[in-house]
C-alpha cells in the first residue's frame, strides 16, 4: 500500500481476571493504520472492539503485544513518557452525556488537555485557543461559558471532539461516537469528522456497530468477533466481496432502507448467540455458529493471513 503505517499493532491482547477464569476480551489482534486514513473496526457487542481501542491508547494496560507508533513501542513507555506520547493519541467517546464533566464549563473542558500539557503561555492564549477549537467544530465563543447540560447530544459530541483536537493530535480513536445520536444528527457529526480529517490531516480509528456508517466513513475495515479479527480489507472490497462466513452473515443482517431491495434479499441467519469470552476453547471462535465448520475448525485456531492482496482473513476453509 502507500507509505509507512502510522500505527502497527501486533498481537495485542487484553485479558481481564474474572471469577471463573480469564476473560479474553482481545486475544491477539494485528493490523496497520496508515497516515490520514480511517480504519473502521466493527463487530457486535462484546466482541472486544472498544477494549481494543482503549488498550491501544493504554487506558487499559495491555496484557501482551506491541504497538509501534512513529517507530516507538508505545506499550513499553514509562508513565511519564506515555503522558507525553498521549498528545498524539486522543479519544472521542460514545456517550456525550457521560464523557463531559457536568460541573465544568465548556471552556474548562476543552482546555483541560491544554492545562495538563502546559500548552499555553497566558490566560488569553488559552481562551483564544478554546474559541478557535469551538469554531472548528461548529460551535461559537458564546458557548464557552456554558455547562454541558445546556447542550443537545450532537452539540455535546462536538465539545468532545473539540477537546480531542486541543493538542493537535495525529491519531484519534472514535469509540462509537454517533451511536447515541439521532439519525439526522449522526450525519452532522460524521460530516464534521470527515471535514476535520481533510483539514487537519488526521488519522482515525472508527469503532462502531453500525456497518453502513462504518463503510461510509472508513477506508479500510476490520471485523472482530469474540476478541479476534476475522477479516480485514479495504472498505469497498470487504462490503462487495466478504469472504469470512461471519462477515457475510453480519452484512446480510443489516436491513437496507429500500423496500424493493430489502424484501428480495436472502439473509444468512446465524443460529444462537455469541459464546462467552471467559476461558474460550482452542479453535475458531465462530465454529458453533458457522454453517461451513469442519473438524479442523474445532482443533486449531485459524491464522489471520493475507489471502489476496490487502485482504486478510482468519478462516480455514477459504
Amino acid at each position: 500500500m502507500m507509505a509507512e503505517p502510522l500505527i502497527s499493532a501486533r498481537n495485542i491482547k487484553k485479558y481481564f481476571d474474572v471469577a471463573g477464569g480469564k476473560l479474553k476480551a482481545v486475544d491477539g489482534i494485528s493490523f496497520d493504520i496508515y497516515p490520514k486514513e480511517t480504519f473502521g473496526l466493527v463487530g457486535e457487542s462484546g466482541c472486544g472492539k472498544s477494549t481494543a481501542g482503549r488498550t491501544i491508547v493504554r487506558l487499559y494496560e495491555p496484557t501482551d503485544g506491541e504497538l509501534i507508533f512513529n517507530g516507538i513501542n508505545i506499550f513499553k513507555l514509562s508513565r511519564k513518557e506515555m503522558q507525553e506520547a498521549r498528545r498524539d493519541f486522543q479519544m472521542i467517546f460514545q456517550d456525550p452525556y457521560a464523557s463531559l464533566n457536568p460541573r465544568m464549563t465548556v471552556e474548562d473542558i476543552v482546555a483541560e488537555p491544554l492545562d495538563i500539557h502546559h500548552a499555553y503561555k497566558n490566560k488569553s492564549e488559552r481562551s483564544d485557543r478554546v474559541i478557535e477549537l469551538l469554531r472548528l467544530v461548529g460551535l461559537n465563543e458564546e458557548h464557552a461559558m456554558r455547562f454541558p447540560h445546556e447542550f443537545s447530544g450532537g452539540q455535546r459530541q462536538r465539545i468532545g471532539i473539540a477537546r480531542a483536537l486541543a493538542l493537535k493530535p495525529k491519531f484519534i480513536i472514535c469509540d462509537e461516537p454517533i451511536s447515541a445520536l439521532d439519525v439526522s444528527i449522526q450525519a452532522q457529526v460524521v460530516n464534521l469528522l470527515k471535514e476535520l480529517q481533510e483539514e487537519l490531516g488526521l488519522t482515525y480509528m472508527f469503532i462502531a456497530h453500525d456497518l453502513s456508517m462504518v463503510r461510509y466513513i472508513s477506508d479500510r475495515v476490520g471485523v472482530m468477533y469474540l476478541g479476534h479479527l476475522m477479516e480485514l480489507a479495504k472498505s469497498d472490497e470487504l462490503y462487495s466481496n466478504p469472504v469470512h462466513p461471519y462477515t457475510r452473515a453480519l452484512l446480510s443482517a443489516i436491513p437496507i432502507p429500500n423496500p424493493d431491495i430489502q424484501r428480495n434479499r436472502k439473509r444468512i441467519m446465524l443460529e444462537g448467540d455469541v459464546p462467552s469470552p471467559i476461558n474460550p476453547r482452542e479453535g475458531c471462535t465462530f465454529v458453533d455458529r458457522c454453517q461451513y465448520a469442519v473438524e479442523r475448525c474445532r482443533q486449531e485456531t485459524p491464522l489471520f493471513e493475507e489471502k489476496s492482496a490487502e485482504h486478510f482473513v482468519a478462516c480455514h476453509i477459504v
Partner: protein
Amino acid sequence: MENVLEVKNLQISFKTFFGEVEAVRGITFSVGKKETVAIVGESGCGKSVTAGGIMQLLPMPPAFFKGGEILFNGENLLEKSEKQMQGIRGNKISMVFQDPMTSLNPTMKIGYQIVEGLMKHNKMSREAAIKKSVEMLELVAVPQPEKRINQYPHEFSGGMRQRVMIALAMACNPQLLIADEPTTALDVTVQAQILELMKKLQNQLGMSIILITHDLGIVADMSDRVVVMYAGQILEVGLTHEIFASPKHPYTRKLLASVPRLDMNREERLHSIEGTPPDLYAPPKGCSFYDRCSEAMKICKDNMPGFDERSRTHQSRCWLNHPMAQKRNSMNGRGI
C-alpha cells in the same frame, strides 16, 4: 380493510414544573387487520408517548389526555376504566418494549411471568397455562423450554430475553402488538432473528403490529404503511413503497438522505439536517419543521399546513403540496 385501531386527533401533554409539554399534538392514523404500521421519527417526536397512550401506561399525572380518541374495534379506550383496561392490556393489545433487560421482572421466573397473564386473562388452570407457556417459548425458538421456564431473566442473553418478551406478549393471542423499538438494544445478527420471528408469528397468528423505530432499514423490511412523526405531529403517512420511492415531505426526504446506504458512493456527502427539533414547551404556530427546512416559504412560519387529501393512501402536511404552490425545480432524484 377493516381497522383494528383508529387514533383520532389524539393529544397528550405532560404537566411539568416548567409548564406544559405538548408531546403529542393531534395525530390521526389507523391500523388495519394483519397490517404492520411503522411509526418513525427521532427521539422526542412523541412516538413512544403515542404507544404509551394507546396502552394507557403513561404515568398520570404528569401525563394527561388533552383531546381526541383511541378507537379499538370501535370502542374508545379513553372511556374505559382502569379495570376494563386491565382486561385489554396484555390480552387484546400487547406490547414489546425496547429494553428486555428492564422490562421483565428480575425476581420472577420467566415461566411464572407468562403463566400470570394466561391465568388472569384466559382463566386457565395453572397446569394448562404452564403447558401453553412451554408452547409459546417453543414458538419463539427458545431452546429447552421446559428447563428455561424455571429460570430467571438474568440467565438469558439479550436476544433470548427479547424472545421471552415476545412470547409473553403473544401468549394471549392479541389482536394488536405494539413493538416499541424491539431490536434497538440488540446486535444486528440477533435483530435479524427477532424480525424474522415477528414476521413468522404475524403470519401464523394474524395480528396487527405497530412498529415503533428510528431505523429506516427495519421499516423497509417490515412495514406495510409508514407514519412519519416529528415534534408531536404526523408529517407524512403512506404505503411503505410510496414513502421510500416518492416522499412528499421535506423532512421525510432529508431523513432518508441522512442515512448511509450500502449502495452509496463513499465520496458522496451525507445530508445532515441542521439544527434541532423545536421545543415542545412552546411548539411553533406554523409548520414544526420550519426552522430546519431548506424549502421553507413565508407561509410556513405562522400557518400550520393541513394534509393534502388527493391520494387516499399517501398524505403529507406541507405547503409545497398545495395545488397552488409553485413547482419545485431544485429537486434532484432524492429531492435534496
